[in-house]
């Protein structure tokens, strides 16, 4: 039995990072169970028909042209199986799509951060999540974290390739692209979603234990597509806050240096010659 389970695991999607990935995995397994039964029955029927009814001396083929009851039977049967699968899918859907609440030890940054109205963007029941903006570009992923230094959202801390997230906190992703179509995918944290220029796409995940999860761009985006890696590093909330504070500090230091450099340049070329980047 244990052997069978491990054999089946060989044939299932990756999971274990976030509950939505686990739910997709269990929906996949239900589909697989139904599929295996049908597969075995039909292949066995085919093999039986081929071997049992092969031409022999004296054998005469039965001249049957059809059987209405049988044919209606298997048509309805096929429809019923698929209807059952549809019902299971609808039953699982909300646990896959709808974010769950953050745990009690969640990062305090999780907030009612609805940045813009969208019917497709889903929030946990208590409305609190940590929103990270994911931007795909040839051939790297960029992530923007909460904590913009300016009211219009500019100056937000960011990172490339590796996304750092707090554990036990519901993370909602706002996925966009700055050039061609990409696709965000970290298999252990749930399904993939296209990053399309001009559109926003959303998903979520919640990691319970610290760890590193690997993924990569899933839609052809050019010659460097294979190297457009995405990793998600989950750390305890306190460590995340520390990391984020450090990123902010680096940003403000860089801004200060830029101000000094600008002032120096202005002094050399005359004020107003260099626009604020």
């Amino acid at each position, binding site marked *: 039995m244990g052997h069978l389970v491990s054999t089946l695991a*060989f*044939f*299932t*999607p*990756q999971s274990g990072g976030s509950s939505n*990935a686990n*739910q*997709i995995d269990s*929906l996949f397994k239900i*589909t697989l169970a139904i*599929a295996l039964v049908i*597969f075995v029955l*039909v*292949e066995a*029927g*085919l093999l039986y*028909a*081929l071997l049992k*009814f*092969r*031409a*022999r001396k004296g054998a005469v*083929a039965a*001249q*049957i042209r*059809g*059987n209405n009851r049988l*044919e209606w039977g*298997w*048509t309805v049967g*096929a*429809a019923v199986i*698929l209807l059952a*699968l*549809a019902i299971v*899918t609808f039953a699982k859907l909300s646990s*896959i*799509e709808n974010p769950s609440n953050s745990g009690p030890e969640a990062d305090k940054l999780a907030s009612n951060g609805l940045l813009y109205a969208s019917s*497709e963007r889903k929030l946990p029941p208590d409305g609190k999540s940590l929103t990270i903006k994911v931007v795909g570009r040839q051939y790297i992923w960029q992530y923007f974290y909460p904590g913009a230094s300016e009211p219009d959202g500019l100056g937000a801390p960011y990172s490339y390739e590796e996304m750092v997230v707090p554990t036990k906190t519901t993370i909602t992703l706002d996925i966009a692209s700055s050039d*061609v*179509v990409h*696709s965000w*995918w970290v298999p252990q944290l*749930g*399904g*993939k*979603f*296209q990053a*399309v*220029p*001009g*559109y*926003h796409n959303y998903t979520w995940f919640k990691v319970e234990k610290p760890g590193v999860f*690997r993924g*990569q761009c*899933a839609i*052809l985006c050019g*010659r460097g*597509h*294979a190297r457009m890696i995405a990793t998600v590093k989950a750390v305890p909330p306190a460590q995340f806050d520390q990391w984020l504070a450090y990123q902010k500090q680096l940003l403000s230091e860089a801004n200060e240096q830029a101000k000094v450099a600008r002032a120096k340049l202005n002094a050399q070329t005359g004020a107003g010659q260099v626009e604020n980047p």
Partner: protein
Amino acid sequence: MATQLAPVPQVNTHAVQREARGWTSWITTTDHKRIGIMYMVTTFVFFCLGGVEALIMRLQLGTPDNTLVTPQTYNQLFTMHGSTMIFLFVVPMMAGLANYFVPLMIGARDMAFPRLNALSYWLLLAGGIVFYASLFWNPPEAGWTSYPPLSSANFTPAGGQDAWIYLIHLTGISSILGAVNFYATIANMRARGMSWGRLPLFIWAILTYSVLIIFAMPVIAAAVTMLLTDRHFGTHFFDPANNGSPILWQNLFWFFGHPEVYIMILPGFGIVSEILPVFARKPIFGYKAIAAATVAIAFLGFLTWAHHMFTAPIPEAVLVFVMLSSFLIAVPTGVKILNWIATLWRGTVEFKTPLLFCAGFIALFLIGGISGVFLAVFPVDWQLNETYFVVAHLHFVLVGGSVMTIFAAIYYWFPKITGRMLSEGLGKLSFWLMFVGVLATFLIQHVIGLDGMPRRVYEYDNIGNLELYNQISTVGSFILGLGVLTTIVNVARSLKVGVVAGPDPWKANTLEWFTSSPPPVNNFDTVPQVRSVEPMKDIRREIERRTGGAPASSAIVPAGATQVGV
């Protein structure tokens, strides 16, 4: 006494017109049989080119960080491979088979519009030449789906993308003209007595294939025209910076792309529905259900395109609707598979090569059909979409499905086209190599996808067993290639030394076997009255009745063909 006993088919064995000879006769021909042969030879050459491209890709993926080809070359390879197999092989190969056999199976002298028919072929060839000429400059590299903005002038300025657009245009016009021709021929030129309920199932399939082409091809023609004007004439249909929409392309492309799947597989269903009854010596089980399922699949095929876009930003209502419509289309497809197995049931199955390919088709296509259901469940598709699981699925449908039926058709109809039999030994060897090859290449690709490897990557990290799995797939692809090569050798050999076939070597059911092999220019001197869906069976029975119970086979097969059928 003797005059009254003369078997009917022998009346037609002489040609009325002299066959034209020389290469100019091929260029100027409007004979549907010659055009059909040109279609089949041309598309088979493209099949081999596409196959070589696939083998180079499999070699590249044989080890994780291989440097056999550059990323650019790899992208060009899969773009050429996909576009070739779809636009220059499967769709036109079906058109080639239909060209040769639609008039023969319905008892017509030629297609309804013979010159239009020739134009279809030459447009196809022009499309293929324009596309492959790009090899000498910059082949396209945005995939056969060519999603903008990647395929726009900003990101892919090279002319190969334009060569791809002209490929779609030229083969598209070729397909539409061919489809109109098939429809007109089938609607108007059937033999006396061949009502819709007596139409061979291959003809039903080609009729449906034609309708699908007529509805779907103009959409892709419009889409690639918009891409062309975006690239060169300053329009912004797909340009997000100017309120254009990349999603619009995905919708237009897949509105064509999904029916295209059925354009490629329905003729194959038709081929199987013709061949199985012949070798099971039993009528097809549920003729009406199969014909109705063909039409139902074609209709539903237009309602499921968005299942290729489950990960795109589209409203949830669309996801749910498309999941259900995709489930719905699995029903008539499943019904056909059960009908085919029921056709074998209680028959007397003769294991000739065409039957083996049909049985292999059922076994492999079932896997592709079942993996399709996984992909229709949209939350599951979020994990599987754009991975090797999809690559495995589509190859089980296209190689396990369409290609197996095309090979079944080659082995079944080669005697009619050339007058000679293919070798059964080489045929069976070819079948087993291809069958094992498909399983070895593509079964493991499901696991490669589930383990997180996206498609269209030129390299991968050896996580888990990815290297081993990819090596299994690579070895499988070469076994598959060897199987194809065996059939090429078989064809080349049999053209010269094959056993002479005679008009009806399989004791088949449909009218193409009524005339000589190869058929004369005018096809038939007289066309018999059709009284059922199996006119040749009726004719054999009638001869048997007139000859007073002598075995029909010895009466109908001319001398010289008697050594066949062992």
